[in-house]
């Protein structure tokens, strides 16, 4: 049997890789890809905790489903923003999008 720790370590590693992508990439779409990695890592954790600690409780599965819905909404709005930005300013490099920067 696979111990719970393996899932937790894998999810932690995936989350950190996603965090690096969010912090280090210049392309706004690449930043969204990093956010997707982080959301997936969280979802692995949620489902693993449901399976290992309390499989009688449906809450773990319901929680994971809500995370799926939020991820879909986040991607739709994020990509729409990026496409609108590209139309107006012809760039999707994160550091050139500084209109609101003081």
């Amino acid at each position: 049997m696979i111990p719970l720790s393996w899932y937790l370590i894998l999810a932690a590693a995936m989350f950190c890789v996603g965090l690096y992508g969010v912090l280090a990439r210049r392309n706004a779409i690449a930043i969204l890809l990093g956010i997707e990695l982080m959301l997936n890592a969280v979802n692995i954790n949620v489902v693993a905790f449901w399976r290992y600690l309390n499989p009688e409780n449906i809450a773990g599965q319901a929680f994971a489903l809500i995370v799926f819905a939020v991820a879909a909404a986040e991607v739709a709005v994020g990509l729409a923003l990026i496409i609108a930005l590209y139309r107006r300013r012809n760039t999707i490099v994160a550091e050139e999008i500084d209109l609101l920067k003081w």
Partner: protein
Amino acid sequence: MTVMQILFLLIGLVTLAASVMVVSTRNMVRAALYLIVTLFGVAVLYVLLNAGFFAVVQVVIYIGAISILFIFAVMLTRDVTGLQAAAFNRTWLLAAFLALVLFGGLFLALQGWSGFETVPPAFTDDTPTIRDLGLALVSPDGYVIPFEVASVLLVAAMIGAIYVAWGRK
């Protein structure tokens, strides 16, 4: 080591390697394709966790919809960060350091936890099935309010995305 453990290690390795490629490759189309590999790996992990429904949802929603959306967005915004331009910003070393520190911190914090080496309990008759999940999502005693909020969120996101991306003169 059992077959399941070897399978997990293989899948985990492929998933992690693909996710590293997602954040490190310069070519955005390749990054999106590596994301699909990662998402497939996560779907297999759901199967290993006896959550078959989530494996199917992962393939249909993430691989079927979200990654296609990503590929379209990459194609619509092509050649801005070309292969010559820097893919990483100036603080990428600090970002890598932060990610490593976070991983180390998470690892240490988890190691001190007593449930770290738990093995999964066997399924009983009380273990919920997909039917139970569906009933719980629409029953007032269960999760009908989060479920409805999620639907409203999806509608709002859809309207917002159409409004934001609409081409105005």
